[in-house]
């Protein structure tokens, strides 16, 4: 039944492999070394994000203007609040995890079960929040126009408040319909067409005197540059190429497409870690209920998944800083 070799017959033989200089079991050490390698993977991503950001330091999106939504509080600009909530949930689930480990040391099965359960719930809330965050980001809120050079032009009123495309652009009747595989070439298709064409946006801008174009360039006050009325019209007419609503891997209404790419990649990779952490926690949770560790007389397995779970929290602390704060 017990497939793990517990005794190797070398106990006490210092030169025969019986010496344990690190005073940690094989499994725990390997979890630590896995964590080191995974930490390096994440640093690779975050450093690459830093590289791209330094490359476009003058035009990088300002996170406070991108992530402003909170569920059930529609239309309010509340930067940071939701992501602070997510951070707190993850820290909280880390606490219940370490309490489970602590109860495991004392061989208290009921306590371990409950704390593991709470940890799983925390993880699920976090993954759900991240899914909501993604959905909001993909959907976008104001819409923008991309120029030939790939830069993003956003719209503001004379007070500097953002204006959504739907507030000043009128969609005219269009004969152009989205090409689908079933009604044309079967081997090509295209995504959803934008609601407006660039010409309609130009008309809208011409007929609304109080709307101005905002470019991505950051001025000396740390804010995005707003063009004058003439410059706005000129910039849009000369360079406007594509109407962008929301964000995906190709275009991004919030600014540089790289920002969206890194957002999807880094938070996606982290979210995948949380998801797999939840799955592993569930497996261990059932093992605890079944009394596996009670019979093994050691809850070290809970400690090992605990290490992984804390690591996920640790990574989020850095993602939070470099994506939302700095």
């Amino acid at each position, binding site marked *: 039944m017990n497939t793990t070799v517990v005794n190797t017959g070398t106990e006490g033989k210092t030169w025969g492999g019986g010496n344990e200089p690190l*005073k940690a079991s094989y499994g725990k050490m390997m979890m630590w*070394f896995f964590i080191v390698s995974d930490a390096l993977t994440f640093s690779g991503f975050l450093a690459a994000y830093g*590289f791209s950001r330094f490359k476009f330091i003058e035009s990088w999106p300002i996170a406070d203007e991108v992530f402003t939504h909170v569920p059930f509080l529609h239309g309010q600009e509340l930067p940071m609040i939701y992501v602070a909530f997510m951070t707190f949930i993850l820290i909280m689930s880390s*606490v219940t995890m*370490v*309490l489970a480990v602590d109860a495991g040391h004392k061989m208290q099965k009921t306590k371990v079960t409950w704390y593991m359960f709470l940890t799983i719930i925390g993880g699920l809330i976090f993954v759900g929040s991240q899914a909501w965050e993604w959905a909001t980001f993909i959907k976008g809120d104001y819409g923008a126009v991309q120029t030939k050079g790939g830069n993003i032009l956003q719209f503001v009123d004379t007070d500097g408040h953002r204006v959504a495309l739907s507030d000043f652009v009128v969609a005219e009747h269009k004969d152009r319909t989205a090409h689908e595989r079933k009604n044309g070439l079967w081997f090509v298709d295209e995504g959803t067409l934008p609601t407006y064409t660039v010409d309609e946006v130009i008309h809208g801008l011409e007929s609304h005197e109080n709307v101005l174009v905002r470019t991505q360039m950051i001025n000396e006050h740390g804010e995005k540059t707003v063009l004058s009325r003439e410059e706005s019209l000129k910039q849009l007419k000369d360079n406007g190429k594509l109407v962008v609503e929301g964000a995906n891997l190709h275009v991004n209404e919030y600014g540089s497409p790289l920002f969206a790419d890194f957002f999807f990649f880094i938070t996606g990779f982290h979210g995948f870690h949380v998801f797999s952490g939840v799955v592993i926690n569930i497996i261990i949770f059932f093992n605890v209920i079944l009394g596996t560790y009670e019979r093994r007389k050691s809850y070290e397995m809970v400690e090992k998944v605990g290490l992984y779970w*804390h690591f996920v*929290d640790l990574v989020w602390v850095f993602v939070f800083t470099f994506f939302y*704060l700095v």
Partner: protein
Amino acid sequence: MAHAHKLEILRGLVKFKSNTQKIWGVLVLLSIVTAVEVVLGIYKPEALMAKVLGMKILNWIFIILTIVKAYYITWDFMHMRDETKALRRMVVWTAVFLICYLIFILLQEGGYIEGVYSTGFVKRDF
């Protein structure tokens, strides 16, 4: 190791009676740090916008507070405080050295490319 937790944090400034108590204490500490970060992130005090070593003071504060949080998560939640010195150094020094090296190289290169763009060799605004 299992029953020999070190119960002091902040270099002995705060001592806890039990491991459970220490866990809650660390939670309070982490929550305070996160709250400070969020408040600074929302209000962005003008006084912290000056640049030190090429970066805003505010951003330095964020990064330092993040490392503080990472320290307490690793030391107290992951029980690094209770491991042997050798294991601790194997994990921490390796990661810290490689990450610093990687960050230095990539940010240096990113800054150089930014310089090439902004000194007019490549036109992006069209």
